């Protein structure tokens, strides 16, 4: 319950502050535009590149958004107050994770539409895209939120975060790219299920492990 309040509070703050989210969306739009120019103009080439472009762009956006999870607290100096709340600190991780997930899903849906427009990604199997998006962003956010919290007070966190984050999310990006690509290519969802399973395993393992480790790294 406290976790949900925390996520809600952070979302409200994020939209009121308007600091990160708009610039991230514009950054993504520009990035997709340039990638479109690089891969195009042949529609078949663009369509083939679309899933990879989509997920790599989302991964970049995610690393920018991840710093918002604790950036909010650092800018206002309120991290101490959050840490002072009673009880074990796992709930802070879950709250921040929910916040990150909401941001990533929002940006992800927008990005999906832009990709569909610029890269001719067929939107037919959109419910399955959404499933992939949810599973993929959950795994991604599990790790990005954890490391963002760990690095929150360190100098050079902007560089350290992607360095730690990207090697770990390789399986998420790979599985999500393949699932999206297969769906776009007209493969029936039943045959894509293997990738979803891998994503589910990843999500469960990393949400649990990160949640347990989080109280240790959030200090000092």
């Amino acid at each position: 319950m406290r976790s949900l309040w925390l996520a809600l509070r952070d979302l409200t703050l994020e939209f009121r502050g308007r600091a990160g989210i708009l610039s991230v969306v514009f950054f993504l739009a520009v990035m997709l535009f340039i990638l479109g120019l690089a891969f195009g103009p042949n529609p078949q080439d663009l369509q083939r590149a679309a899933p990879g472009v989509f997920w790599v762009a989302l991964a970049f956006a995610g690393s920018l958004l991840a710093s918002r999870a604790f950036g909010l607290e650092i800018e206002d100096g309120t991290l101490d107050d959050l840490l002072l709340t009673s009880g074990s600190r796992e709930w802070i991780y879950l709250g921040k994770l929910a916040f990150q997930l909401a941001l990533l899903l929002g940006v992800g849906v927008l990005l999906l539409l832009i990709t569909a427009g610029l890269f001719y990604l067929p939107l037919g199997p959109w419910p399955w895209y959404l499933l992939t998006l949810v599973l993929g962003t959950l795994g991604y956010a599990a790790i990005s939120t954890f490391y963002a919290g760990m690095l929150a007070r360190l100098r050079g966190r902007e560089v350290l975060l992607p360095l730690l984050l990207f090697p770990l999310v390789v399986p998420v990006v790979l599985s999500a790219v393949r699932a999206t690509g297969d769906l776009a290519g007209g493969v029936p969802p039943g045959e894509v299920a293997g990738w979803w399973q891998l994503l589910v395993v990843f999500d469960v393992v990393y949400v649990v492990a990160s949640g347990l480790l989080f109280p240790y790294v959030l200090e000092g």
Partner: protein
Amino acid sequence: MNRLIEASNLGKRYGLDWVFRGLEFRLNPGEVVALLGPNGAGKTTLLRVLAGLVRPTQGKLLRQGRVGLLANPPAFHRHFSGEENLRYALRLEGLPIRAEALKAALKAVGLSQRKPVLSYSSGMKKRLAIARIRLLKPDIWLLDEPEAALDAQGRELLEGLVQEARGRNGVVIATHDRGWLSHCDRALDLGALQKADPDRPSSADAARNIG
């Protein structure tokens, strides 16, 4: 014995320099303890260690009950109004929210505006922090230079706060202002400890009893 804080041989080191070490500290319910010492004596660090925000480098620290810290300066979310800041403070602590209580708490410290904290002066932030710690009703009150940035009226509020807590909760006041001593049961002078024995573990039993 139902101690709020029981610390023995406590030490904190930043890099290679000890801020303090070999410190003994106890806090009983109902007690008000002053933490004295010049700038750099380690008052704020000790408060943060006692609050559980900083892990001590050495020693044992046992704590019972919820902790409230009146930081100097206090921190709030800029884009929230004073009332929203208080409401979320309660929610994240898992405490129930009553609208009248929130309003009364704000009014008691002379804040009624719905303006975002962004537009607050440092004195107003301090008042908001007083309202917050009052609403949260912690068992252990840690006040870091509470008088800073407050006007005469704010100071009165603060003394009222300490009186309110005295006798029920444990209060630790880190300050330069010896005027607080009349409100305190005991004082611990970190500066004297440091001077007496800068390099070896020192015992804080040197703490004077003044109450």
